[in-house]
């Protein structure tokens, strides 16, 4: 069995640690490129959402590299993601690929298939202790990849040399692929933090524009799909915070592992959107409100074109934007999105934010003057 799985930012780093430890030979999915997207777009249904197309492209490329077992997560709806696996299986079957599709579905769809999928995923005969240890390590690695990406987007507008920052982050990500124990991971975490602290800063957090990112879990994170909006904003001198996280997404599937932060996000969204509408719809609304409360200057909303939950969120965000006086840039991403157009829109958005900040400062000064 040679297994593979789809990309989701640095998920391949974590799974690349997990599976070999469990004795499963893996074919790491080839890097996500223009070609991956082209393959996916050609094979997938025309109006399917973008992540389905990209992950399908991933699978085809991995199969060409010799993978014969595909791991994919399922879902219970109402977002289309839960049905991706079924569609992709049909398409790959019709193409004549002889592959085994292992869908890790919610136990709601039959506890037996769930256990079966777990058993195949864990190789069947490994001791539970070892599974727990391997999973814990992979989990910690995944967490750390998110931490370091968060540091990168926060520091980008502050550091003197952006290339030095990238070097530190990329170097760490490469080293993470070879981590074998928790102690080794802790060593990497320590040295990375040291290296990041050593970077000379030229600006302070208080003086830069702050933008938060909300949106769909795949498109808002996968920088190879969203034209690296975070980097673009950072280069324009904007402090970026991303509310979307794979760790949170996984924790969220079980009611007792939901973080307090997530519950808080949902509570914030309630006055506008009273219930979960699938995907990250309610999270997008709640996170945008939280950014407003944190005093952020703007929000970028990233989602796949025609994404159902995010369109609901988009309709509601217009009201949030009015109520909290918070500019929101909606960016729908699909295979037709052009980089040049996107850059122009983001630049214009940052210009607007800068101007707003200036006039606001002026009016504050003015008010202070009239009252004194």
């Amino acid at each position, binding site marked *: 069995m040679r297994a593979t799985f789809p990309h989701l930012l640095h998920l391949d780093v974590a799974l690349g640690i997990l599976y070999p430890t469990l004795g499963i030979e893996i074919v790491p999915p080839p890097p996500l490129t223009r070609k991956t997207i082209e393959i996916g777009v050609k094979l997938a249904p025309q*109006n399917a959402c973008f992540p389905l197309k990209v992950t399908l492209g991933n699978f085809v490329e991995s199969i060409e590299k010799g993978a014969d077992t595909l791991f994919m997560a399922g879902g219970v*709806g109402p977002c289309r993601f839960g049905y991706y696996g079924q569609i992709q299986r049909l398409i790959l079957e019709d193409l004549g690929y002889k592959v085994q599709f292992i869908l890790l579905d919610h136990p709601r769809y039959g506890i037996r298939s769930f256990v079966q999928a777990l058993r195949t995923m864990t190789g069947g005969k490994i001791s539970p202790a070892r599974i727990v240890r391997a999973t814990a390590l992979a989990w910690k690695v995944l967490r750390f990849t998110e931490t370091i990406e968060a540091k990168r987007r926060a520091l980008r507008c502050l550091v003197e040399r952006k290339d030095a920052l990238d070097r530190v982050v990329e170097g760490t990500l490469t080293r993470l692929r070879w981590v074998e124990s928790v102690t080794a991971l802790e060593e990497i975490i320590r040295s990375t933090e040291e290296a990041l602290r050593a970077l000379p800063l030229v600006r302070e957090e208080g003086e830069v524009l702050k933008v938060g990112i909300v949106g769909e879990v795949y498109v808002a994170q996968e920088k190879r799909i969203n034209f690296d909006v975070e980097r673009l904003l950072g280069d324009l001198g904007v402090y970026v915070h991303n509310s979307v996280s794979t760790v949170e997404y996984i924790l969220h599937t079980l009611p007792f592992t939901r973080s307090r932060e997530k519950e808080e996000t949902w509570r914030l969204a309630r006055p506008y*959107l009273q*219930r979960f509408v699938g995907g990250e719809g309610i999270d997008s609304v709640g996170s945008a409100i939280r950014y407003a409360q944190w005093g952020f200057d703007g929000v970028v909303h990233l989602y796949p074109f025609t994404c159902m939950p995010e369109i609901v969120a988009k309709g509601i965000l217009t009201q949030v934007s009015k109520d909290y006086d918070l500019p929101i840039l909606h960016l729908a991403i699909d295979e037709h999105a052009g980089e040049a157009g996107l850059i122009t829109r983001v630049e214009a958005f940052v210009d607007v934010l800068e101007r707003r900040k200036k006039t606001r400062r002026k009016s504050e000064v003015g008010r202070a003057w009239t009252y004194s």
Partner: protein
Amino acid sequence: MVGIPRGLLFYRFYWLWKTFLEELGVEVRVSPPTNKAIIRRGLTYGVEEICFPVKVFLGHVMAIQDEVDFLFLPRMVSFHRREYTCPKILGLPDLVRNLFGISSERIITGEVNMRDTGIWGWRQGFLEMGRRFTRQEGKIMRALKRAEEAHKRYREKLKTGILPEHLIDRREEVVPKEKKVLLLGHTYLISDSYINMNIVQKIHTLGYGVVTQDMVDEQRVRKYLSLLQKPSFWTISNEIMGTALLYLKERDPRLKGYIHLVSFECGPDSLVGEVIERWIKRESETLPYLRLEIDEHTGEAGLLTRLEAFVDMMEWRDAHLESNLSSSLAP
């Protein structure tokens, strides 16, 4: 007075909602059939990327909101166990509230959710809405019971081959035809002859009658749905898939082809259509299949041309097969 916008699940639950409200002593007003002005309003004030039927629905909300005291927008989260409706329907009351600035007091809504709790969740939803009019729970439950009976009668009538639209507006029914096509698609597309450009009538003029998923026995649909490794989690899409599979496996000689009517940005249909298409292609000998996408840019002439070409294909295939048969029978 309570207004019901004519759109989306209206075509499925009209009798249920209407009877429920009337039994509670409320005057009901339904927005007029879709017209150009309604669509234009929906397009202008809706979210630009949302699917066409939701835009039309929003247009209906605008058309009726000033004439009534309350808007009736039940949140139909799920009307089948372990299934959902689509996210846009889940968030519909919130969308209306936020897009048009209508206050929560003017919207009568309640979460009807049978996903986990079955009939209990159904009753809870209607109790929540009924409490806006009366404190007596017994009265609400009685109203719901009457409404359910009316709904059952309505669904039974649909099975005889009448379209919801004809039943609701007491319009002239179409005369049944010998040859039929299976017209798949959400009821709010099939039954709104303004937005689907009178497709049923067009098909009829070309010499064919239609069968829709509302005309088929639900239990049989569910049985055939279990052919799939995993059915989807959208109730109406499941009914569409199940009906397609039913006619794929249980051949009806009068049925000559499949037409799947979808709206351009419909999420569930983009995947479900693919499943149906691939299942049809996998059969060794199948009927022609046509997917028609409808949105605000669809032109009537283009639609008619495609229909005519499709009818030609069905007829050619029919003649071809018959001649094949006769030649094989000949010595």
